[in-house]
């Protein structure tokens, strides 16, 4: 037998439950634009019917319902989509950093333009032609020296630019590591909070949303591997170490950050390698230009400054013929065309004689640190030459005047041979470069082309990764996002249910009124 007031109780439950549903609709609408918010749903269920199976059953037919109640409020989210989004987000962040690095390198090299390294090298080679046209002309010597100083300055400033990029990368790694540590600490705090709140019928929806948002942000910085533990906390692996476990966050340092395989940190680490590659290639180019082994031909012959070995049979001024491969004594005058192997620009310049007193064995380029390997950072024009244009050893012959050696001013045999270096096909160490053999100009062009390919690739990857990240986010929004239309139609649904429940209560009330006030008054 049901209670007289059963109807009122059922209607009251309905009013309270629909109110919760309406409030949740309100919560959803309020957060329609909140980042990382997932829509929430009140799980409505019918309340237990009045007659439970028991020892004494009523004889009344039918199961009388007791109205509506909700058993939980849950958020709607697909953790698989989170996984997908974070994977794409890591890759996007990594490629964005790579693209920035390549753009910085491209800006530094400034190609194609009229003042990049190519233009400076062109000017250097051309000034050699000017020198060769008239080696005795002071203005030609000044022009050549200026072009050479400009070349070393440009190389040095590229080196400085690369060093700046590297130190920016180092600073970024430190700053990003700080961000990572901050994020993991907050995630661990949320882990603890969520664990405390959640229990039977309790879902910490909004806190979970916050925690997922933090993990999304973390995935932009570093590779993340999230495991959901049975107690609802996240265990996170990043850069090969466990950074979050329960309520504990392990702080990482720059060393661990360098092991990152995704996110910005991985981009910075990879950028290091790319910058070093650029530096290595340019160093190889510079070292080959200055010291690379090459063959030179001096068509007018040569006066040997030391004991030398020619590659062809040569005739001396006194008629002696010295066969190829045999030593030509110092201070011999070779009158036939002669071929030597020399070590690059410096090796050839060392053969020449300065004016007027025919000094020889002068290196044109020197290293600032005294090293034998020329790099873009240590190459300088020999200060002796820089301060005195007479020290440019353009001549290949001298004569004796009053017991003193005097270089022949108009002799440009060495400057002539120097102009031909531009077309000499050098061999480059294969373990460091992509181009095996070619001229210095070829090498630089190949290098710039390779840089362009890498940069282009990075840009394409950013576009692709951005599209993929957007697609993953789109799928997440499809599941978890708030649709205002949907919420509004729900609102109407719940409003009607609420209104109807109120009307129902009025009806029950009238029913009781009938019983209490209008029944049993016959004959009054």
């Amino acid at each position, binding site marked *: 037998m049901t209670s007289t007031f059963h109807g009122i109780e059922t209607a009251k439950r309905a009013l309270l439950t629909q109110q919760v549903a309406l409030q949740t609709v309100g919560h959803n609408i309020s957060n329609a634009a909140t980042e990382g918010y997932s829509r929430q749903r009140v799980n409505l269920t019918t309340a237990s019917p009045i007659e439970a199976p028991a020892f004494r059953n009523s004889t009344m037919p039918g199961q009388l319902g007791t109205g509506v109640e909700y058993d939980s409020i849950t958020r709607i989210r697909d953790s698989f989509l989170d996984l997908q989004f974070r994977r794409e987000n890591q890759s996007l962040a990594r490629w964005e950093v790579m693209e920035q690095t390549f753009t910085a390198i491209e800006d530094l090299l400034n190609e194609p333009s009229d003042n990049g390294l190519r233009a400076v090298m062109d000017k250097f080679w051309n000034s050699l*032609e000017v020198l060769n046209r008239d080696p005795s002309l002071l203005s030609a010597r000044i022009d050549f020296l200026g072009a050479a100083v400009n070349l070393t300055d440009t190389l040095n400033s590229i080196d400085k630019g690369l060093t700046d990029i590297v130190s920016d990368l180092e600073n970024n790694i430190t700053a990003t590591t700080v961000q990572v540590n901050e994020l993991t600490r907050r995630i661990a705090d949320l882990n603890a909070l969520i664990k405390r709140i959640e229990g039977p019928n309790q879902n910490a929806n909004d806190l979970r949303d916050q925690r997922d948002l933090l993990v999304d942000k973390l995935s932009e910085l570093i590779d993340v591997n999230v495991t959901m533990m049975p107690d609802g906390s996240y265990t996170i692996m990043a850069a090969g170490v466990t950074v979050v476990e329960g309520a504990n966050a392990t702080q990482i340092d720059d060393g661990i950050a360098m092991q990152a395989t995704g996110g910005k940190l991985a981009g910075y680490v990879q950028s290091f390698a790319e910058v070093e590659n650029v530096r290595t290639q340019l160093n190889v180019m510079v070292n080959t230009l200055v010291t690379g082994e090459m063959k030179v031909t001096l068509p007018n012959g040569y006066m040997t400054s030391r004991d030398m070995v020619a590659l062809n049979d040569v005739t001396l001024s006194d008629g002696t013929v010295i066969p190829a491969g045999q030593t030509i004594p110092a201070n011999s005058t070779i009158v036939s065309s002669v071929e030597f192997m020399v070590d690059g620009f410096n090796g050839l310049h060392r053969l020449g004689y300065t004016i007027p007193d025919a000094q020889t064995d002068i290196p044109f380029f020197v290293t600032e640190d005294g090293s034998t390997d020329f790099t873009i950072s240590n190459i300088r024009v020999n200060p002796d030459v820089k301060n005195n244009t007479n020290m440019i050893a353009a001549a290949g012959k001298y004569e004796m005047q009053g017991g003193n050696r005097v270089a022949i001013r108009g002799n440009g045999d060495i400057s002539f041979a120097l102009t031909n270096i531009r077309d000499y096909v050098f061999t480059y160490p294969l373990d460091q470069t992509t181009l095996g053999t070619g001229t210095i100009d070829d090498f630089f062009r190949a290098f*710039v082309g390779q840089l362009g390919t890498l940069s282009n690739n990075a840009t394409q990857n950013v576009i692709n990764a951005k599209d993929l990240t957007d697609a993953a986010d789109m799928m997440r929004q499809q599941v978890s996002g708030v649709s205002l239309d949907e919420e509004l139609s729900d609102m109407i649904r719940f409003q009607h249910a609420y209104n109807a429940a109120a009307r129902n209560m009025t009806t029950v009330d009238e029913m009781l009124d009938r019983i209490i006030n209008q029944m049993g008054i016959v004959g009054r």
Partner: protein
Amino acid sequence: MRVTNMMQNTQLLQNLRNNNRGILEWQNKLATGQRIHRPGDDPVGIGYLMRYNSELNRTNEFLENARTGIGYLKTMDELMQQSSDVLKRARVLVQQAANGTIPEDSRKQIAMEIAQLKEQMVMIGNSTFAGRYLFNGQKTDQPPYSMTDPHLNQTDPGVIYLNVSPNVSVPVTITGELIFGEAGAADNVFQVFDDIINHLNNNEQAELLDDLAKIDAASDRINNNWAEIGARTNRFELVESRIEDQIISLKTLRSETGDVDMPEALIELMQKENVLQASLSVGARIMQVSLVDFLR
């Protein structure tokens, strides 16, 4: 498919971003007229572009070399003309003096004129171009011939080469001894002049007839070198016109590689602009509408 408000938002932003990127790219191309702004724009094209730029710079230098060579050779050409004229005059005088009817003191007068001609010849041998002595090989700062003993002066055998294209160089100078005869040799043109003066002063008529043959031999030598100079001039002139053609073709190639195809760029930009406008207006219209507008 469930569509939420955030999705519309994301989609619109994504489309706008793509459209704007395209517009920025074409705007930059149109504004600069250049197709390649950084190596990444066209990794293959950049190699060609850099090559054409280098070649153009370099070709200008070769052109300057060729013009310097032509300047040298034109001067030498004029000097050969002058020395040929000197020898012609000497031949006429010697022929006159070899005539038996000429009185002895006339021969002495002729000897004085021949001495003038010899001096003229020494001056020719000491000629300069742009301040550099032409006939002393690479010792361009020293005059090859002295006034007193030009017949004994050795000239420098060095040759000045100028590059006219990669790995192709052309010799420019011819040393004095090749033109005027070896130092100390009997057929040295200055020696021949000295001999003639002696023969005239000593009134040796028979020797003068032999001297005529020596003048002819000297003039032949000068003519041979003159022809060589002419041949070299031709070579430089050919090179000059080839380089001028090359510059035009290099500029064409550079333009094809590096310049923007304007009509194409304009059409592309217009299309991108249309798409941008469409996406903006669609976004604005769709995002304004929701169920709220229709509920009382």
